[in-house]
């Protein structure tokens, strides 16, 4: 069962990587990396069940949180050009 799941998730990850390489704007690339991260979480869980070690789910849990924080940080950097400023403060600085 989990051989099929792992293979399917790997195919989907390859397709997401193609979008990350092609993607015309930087937002396409961030989107592709974000979906790639979600699929990585599922891949870790699936491999854990495949090898009979569901303890891998802890790693998946940590990866889900790290992926989210990374995406938000990169997006904030692209939106404001700074990791500390909000839009309100950025206007006042201008």
């Amino acid at each position, binding site marked *: *069962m*989990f051989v*099929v*799941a792992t293979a*399917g*998730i790997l*195919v*989907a990850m390859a*397709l*997401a990587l*193609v*979008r990350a390489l092609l993607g015309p*704007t*930087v*937002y*396409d690339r*961030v*989107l*592709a990396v*974000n*979906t790639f991260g*979600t*699929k990585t*979480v*599922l891949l870790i*869980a*699936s491999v854990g*069940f495949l090898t009979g070690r*569901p303890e891998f*789910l*802890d790693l*998946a*849990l940590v990866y*889900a*949180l790290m*992926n*989210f924080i990374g*995406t*938000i940080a990169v*997006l*904030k950097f*692209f*939106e404001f050009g700074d990791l500390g400023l909000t839009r309100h403060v950025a206007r006042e600085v201008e």
Partner: protein
Amino acid sequence: MMAAVLDVMAWASIVAGLFFMLVGTIGVLRMPDVYTRLHAAGMTDTMGAGLLLFGMALHTITGMMNGQGHWWTVLVRLAFIYGFLLFTSPIATHALARAGLAGGVEPWSNEKGDQP
């Protein structure tokens, strides 16, 4: 008997989850601009990941019926992963769309004669 039914349900839900995941990723590849691609990616996160994790939970319950120990910690972890995905995926999608608009990406529109 009960375990066999649960096993079939686990198979069905994992195959359905893989279907949604592949369809969503093909959508990310083929859609014309960032905002439409976000739509396809959001489907991957809810239906694809949800059904896959549900299948894993059913598989764990089948293992419990066959006498495996510490099954409930696995169920709790699966529920936590799904809960985090449920919160983080819409927030990431929203932030991405907002950053795209602030970054000056024009939404794709059929009226302007854009080609997909």
